[in-house]
């Protein structure tokens, strides 16, 4: 996620420079042909070009809104994950009978809370298609890790592990049935968050939303100098390229934010949110050796 005020040009320029340079050269050719009287056929009345620009703006705004909707939903889901993680840790610590932090936390409570931290890490890696096991080594025991390696959906398997621990606590009489049900509801919330994230990850924006705006932007940018050349003549390349830049940039913005779990600068800041959850949960356990908060790198938080 970008947290700096301005976008650096070296991030924007590589994505659009080819199109803009080609358009500028094309616009220049059109304006030279017209201005020096080589042909007057290149001038079109501006009337059909201008309404087309308005329609295209609406189309692009719709596409950008759809992409932003996906990005914002992803952020909301991770916000919900932060809340549910804290709730689960609180419930594990206060509902299950036994020692209380900071002085005397039972191993069972500690395992549940560490598994929840592991769940968040595993979900992040699952969404970014990254190997989670190097991170999980320090959060779960070797036996659980070996079991998780056999699972295709690691975060879902971790939820099962937490549920199994809660069930054991219930059967041992350390957790009554009402509290077990309440805690299980939190696990269901976590499962729902995971499912919603997977839905965003696995379902792209309808390709029509991506394809047609791109084609229409190209067509519009090519037609634009023909509509402007009669009035602007040699100034046509400058104005036309500037207007084209606005449309191209708008189209790029939509494309960049439509996939919020792709390990890019436009991602939901999952690494940072994972760290927030970890710090909170470790503090709930009374741990004092906490990892540092994550600072933005070059104005980007991952």
């Amino acid at each position, binding site marked *: 996620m970008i947290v700096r005020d301005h976008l650096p040009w*070296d*991030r924007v*320029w*590589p*994505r659009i*420079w*080819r199109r803009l340079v080609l358009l500028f050269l094309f616009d220049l050719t059109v304006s030279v042909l017209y201005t020096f009287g080589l042909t007057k056929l290149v001038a079109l009345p501006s009337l059909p070009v201008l309404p087309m620009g308005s329609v295209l703006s609406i189309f692009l705004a719709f596409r950008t809104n759809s992409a932003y909707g996906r990005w914002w939903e992803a952020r909301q889901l991770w916000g919900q994950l932060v809340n549910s993680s804290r709730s689960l840790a609180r419930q594990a610590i206060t509902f299950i009978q036994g020692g209380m932090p900071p002085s005397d936390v039972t191993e069972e409570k500690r395992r549940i809370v560490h598994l929840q931290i592991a769940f968040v*890490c595993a979900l*992040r*890696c699952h969404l*970014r*298609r*990254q*190997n*989670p*096991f*190097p*991170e999980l*080594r*320090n*959060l779960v025991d070797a036996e659980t890790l070996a079991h998780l*390696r*056999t699972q295709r959906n690691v975060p879902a398997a971790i939820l099962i592990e937490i549920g199994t621990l809660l069930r054991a606590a219930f059967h041992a009489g350390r957790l009554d049935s009402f509290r077990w049900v309440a805690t299980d509801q939190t696990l269901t919330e976590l499962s729902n968050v995971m499912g919603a994230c997977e839905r965003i990850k696995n379902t792209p924006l309808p390709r029509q939303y991506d394809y047609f705006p791109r084609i229409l932007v190209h067509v519009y940018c090519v037609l634009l100098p023909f509509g402007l050349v009669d009035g602007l003549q040699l100034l046509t390349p400058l104005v036309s390229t500037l207007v084209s830049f606005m449309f191209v940039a708008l189209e790029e913005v939509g494309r960049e934010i439509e996939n919020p779990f792709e*390990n*890019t*600068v436009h991602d939901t800041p999952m*690494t*940072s949110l*994972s*760290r927030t959850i970890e710090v909170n949960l470790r503090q709930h356990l009374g741990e004092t050796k906490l*990892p*540092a908060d*994550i*600072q*933005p*790198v*070059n104005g980007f938080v*991952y």
Partner: protein
Amino acid sequence: MPTGVSSLPQREMKLLLSTRFSESCFNAIPAIAQWMDDIASSLTIVHVYNPKKTHRSDALAQLSGFFAEADHYGGTRRVLLSGEDPAKAMAAYLAEEAHDLLVCPATDQVGLPRPFHRSTRARLMQLTSTPLWTISASADGLRARPPQRVACVISRRSDSRRPLELAAQYAQFHGACLQLMYLVPEVDDGTIRNSLSFNEPLSERTAARELGKLVDALSLTCEIYTARGVCSRSLADMVSRARTELLFIGKNEVLRRKLWLPDVASFTDSAGCPVVCVDHDRSAPLSRLFSARVSERAVVRRAANTVSTESSMI
């Protein structure tokens, strides 16, 4: 081909990630996580800052924020170096602290020609003997699983033996398919020289047959790819056609000169997969590591198979 050499000492792989916090460096994180799970035991994240341009505290804050999840890996170190020439500073650090693999993703594209750009990767290849893993910013396909198709470029030069050894051992380590790639040169003096050793013109068929002999000696699942042309023009197409996921190649095949400055051949970026550039005679540590750990991984695989068989019986 040395495989499963149990007499060699067990070594843990030391990975060094050189970062300038570019998008390419973030793109490389899934691959590093995979290395860390496979064979690497320690990761050193190094950033070289220029004290004339950046304040040390800013550089330190950025370094600690980059790849934060690596803090959980155990054995992760963050090292901040200062210097005006990142390649020289890195090389000096590598001379002090030997590492088995240097991870150096490509610089982000700026979209403009850079005739006087000094490629840090190229200079690192010249200055150090450590195998260099690199990937372009636009490359896709880094996934949370070991590569299934590992390729090696066989060349007429003397330095293709080491990349082949490493590629074969890496493929065996992961049970991946080894792809041998050979580009038959256009007709030149070298072709005539090769023809003398093969008793027939060096065609794609001749090359494939010679590679076939190599495959028989490797006892691995192999695929052979041959085409006519040179690396700079044809290799990226071949890699794309073979759907290669990791490419081993000799450093001499990769190093170029642009004007008078060292540069990395453009096919390393257009290949679309990570590339490991190997020095011809000085990459023994990585080779030894693979050899030592192949047998260990085989034991783990057998154990995993046993578990799955039991599960299916239940």
